[in-house]
């Protein structure tokens, strides 16, 4: 989905598996710099999340205020012999620092930007 100024990229875990930690951090910031919102199938390791946080803060300027990250959990029903049970999958949303990520109690996720630029998923 593409909205003027911003786009949402879903990144499967397999896309990041072949990258080193540094390459993953570079990959994320390259996308963020180009006004992409990332939804990662893999929630990344604590070390990587910390590295993203500190790297983002170290780059602070009038034009770059950091990044926003938030877990979202999606519940899916299991079919087959385990029918009736459900499985939770955790995704990680990473957005530019001026975004507001809202995960409602109902499970809806919205990523909003200031002014008129907004994206809802």
């Amino acid at each position, binding site marked *: 989905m593409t909205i003027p100024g911003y786009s949402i990229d879903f990144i499967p875990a397999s896309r990041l598996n072949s990258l080193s930690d540094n390459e993953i951090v570079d990959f994320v910031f390259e996308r963020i710099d180009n006004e992409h919102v990332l939804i990662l199938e893999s929630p990344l*390791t*604590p*070390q990587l*999340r*910390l590295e*993203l*946080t*500190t790297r*983002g*803060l*170290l780059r*602070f300027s*009038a034009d770059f*205020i*950091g*990044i*926003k*990250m*938030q*877990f979202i*959990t999606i519940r899916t029903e299991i079919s087959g012999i385990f029918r009736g049970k459900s499985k939770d999958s955790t995704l990680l949303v990473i957005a530019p*620092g*001026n975004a507001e990520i809202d*995960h409602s*109690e109902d499970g809806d996720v919205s990523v909003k930007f200031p002014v008129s630029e907004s994206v809802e998923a």
Partner: protein
Amino acid sequence: MIKTAKWLLMLSTFSRFFSKTKQASVCLIGEVNTGKSTLANRISNDFTGSDMSAVSTIAHETRDIVKLEHVNFNSEGKKLDLTLVDTPGIATAIDYKEFVGQGIPEDQAMQRAKEATAGIIKAIKFLEEVDIAVVMMDATKTPFDQVSLTLMGTLEMNKKKKSLWLTRLIFPVQSLNSSRAPSRSTKSFRSQL
């Protein structure tokens, strides 16, 4: 706000974990405006008669680490010499325009934001050195946000490095500036702890 008696009781309980330890450091850490400095000041006032940190409704008032040394507790004949550490509020993005909106001139707002980012990085790294991290949270907001992620990750990494030393206390409190009820996800999070 937590009464000092409860705080003392809690630390008295912790002191049992330090039967062979005479000194320990307790770090108050968490999101912006969750009452870290308010709690630190309450304890500091009880022990020294003066405040540790300035408190403000404008975010990022505490922009550097503040220590209060020799907070001494006695429990069951054992002594615990605590160093209390107040830290800047953790965030992964700081919008200086919010400070401008609260009446701070733009150049000062930018400076405040720069100091805050430096303070946050320092606070996160400082977690490697502390024995107990008291994570303060705003119970009206979802606990699964970025700050929780950052802190959990840092504590998890430090636990591996100092598994005998680092004791985690996750301590959700309702924001002192908010009258809203705790969120459902916070209640769920609290029940999971």
